[in-house]
C-alpha cells in the first residue's frame, strides 16, 4: 500500500491520507477485512504527527470506510459502495441546502452562489 503526501499541496495532510485510502478501498486494492497499519506506525513511517493520522482514520470511520476496534486496530469495513456514495451525496445535499437557505435569505443570487461553489471546488 502506497501513501504519498505532498507538503506543497493546499489539501491538509489528513485529507490527503483519507482520500488516498478511500480510493484504495473503492478501487478494490484494499479489500473488506484488510488490516490498515496502526495510526502510530503510519505516523512514524510518514514522519508526521500521530494526531494527523488519527484524524484521517476518524474521518474514514465516520464515512463508513473503515472500522477501528480499540486494541485490535483498524480494518476495511464491509463495503457497500452504493450505500457509501448515497451517504456522501446526501451529506452534500444537506450542506448545500444550508447554503441555499442562507443565500436566499440574504439576497445572494444563484450566480453568486455558483461562483463561490466554483472557487471552492477548484481550490486544490
Amino acid at each position, binding site marked *: 500500500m502506497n501513501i504519498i503526501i505532498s507538503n506543497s499541496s*493546499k489539501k*491538509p495532510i*489528513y485529507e490527503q491520507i483519507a482520500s488516498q485510502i478511500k480510493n484504495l478501498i473503492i478501487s478494490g486494492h484494499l479489500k473488506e477485512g484488510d488490516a490498515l497499519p496502526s495510526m*502510530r*506506525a503510519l*505516523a*512514524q513511517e510518514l*514522519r*508526521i*504527527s*500521530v*494526531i*494527523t493520522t488519527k*484524524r484521517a482514520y476518524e474521518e474514514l470511520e465516520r464515512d463508513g470506510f473503515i472500522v477501528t476496534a480499540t486494541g485490535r486496530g483498524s480494518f476495511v469495513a464491509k463495503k457497500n459502495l452504493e450505500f457509501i456514495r448515497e451517504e456522501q451525496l446526501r451529506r452534500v445535499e444537506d450542506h448545500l441546502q444550508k447554503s441555499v437557505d442562507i443565500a436566499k435569505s440574504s439576497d445572494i443570487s444563484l450566480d453568486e452562489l455558483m461562483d*463561490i461553489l466554483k*472557487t471552492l471546488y477548484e481550490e486544490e
Partner: protein
Amino acid sequence: MENILTIENLTKDYGEFILKEVSFQLPKGCIMGLVGENGAGKTTIIKLILNLIKKDGGSIQIFGLDNIENDPALKEGIGVVLDESNFHDNLKSTEVSKIMKNIYNKWDEALYFKYLNRFKLPADKKIKEFSKGMKIKLSIAAALSHKPQLLILDEPTSGLDPIVRNEILDIFLEFIQDEERAILFSSHITSDLDKIADYITFIHNGGLIFSQSKEEMLDYYGIIKCGTDQFQLIDKEDIVGYRRNSFGCEVLIRNKRENRLKYRDWVMDDANLEDIMLFHIRGEKN
C-alpha cells in the same frame, strides 16, 4: 490518567525575568515541542518540572502525582537529556553503565549496550574523545536505558548535523510507539518540530502564547500577502502580526478556516511553525 504531565499557573520570579502563570498539558502517546526564543523561559520550565529550582506558584503533576511530594521516586520514570553531556570526560561508556546501575532500579545494561552499538559509540574510549554528536547520543542512550515513561530533553539537537539530527528524531518516533509514553523537548530548530511534534507549546517572554496540536495550529494561522493599501482593508481583529517590505505586506492572520471565504480573493498561504513564531515575536503589531 490521560495526561502524563499537567502544568497549571506555573510561576517563577527571577526579578528581571518572570515566568508567569504558564499552563499546559502533555497527553500520553504524544511528542510536545517547547518552542521560543533563547531566554523565553523554556529551560526554566524544564528545571521547574524536574524540581531543580523552586517554583513561586502553580502546580506540576507528573503521572498524576505532585512533582515535589513524589520526588525522587517519580524520577525512576523520567529520562532526561540536558543540553550538554553531563558525564565526566574521563569516564568510559561502560563505567557510565556501572554508575547508572546503582542509581536506577530498572537500569537495563543489555539495552544500554544495544543502544551503544546502534549509535556506534565505542565502549572502551573515554568520553573526552567523543564528538558533540556522540556525547548527546550517549546521553540519550543513558536516558532510555532505564525504561522511562517520560522523556524530557532540553535542546537535544542543536549544534548537530542533519544526519545525526534525523537519527535522533527517528529514535523519538520509535520511543513513542508505546502509547503510555510521551516526550517533551525544547528546541528552536523548527524544522525538527515540523517533522515530529504532535503538540507545540510556544513560550515568549515568560508567558504562554499557545499550546495546541500542531494540526490545529497549522489550520489556524495563515499568511496574507497584499499591497500596502489593501492592508488597511484587513480586519484588525484577525491580525497577529505583519511585515512590510518595499513591495507589499505579509500578514499573519488567525482563524484561517473561518476567514477563508472572507479573504477568498486574496493571496493566502499556509504558515509554518517558523513563520508563526517570527510573526508573533518580530511582527509589528498595530
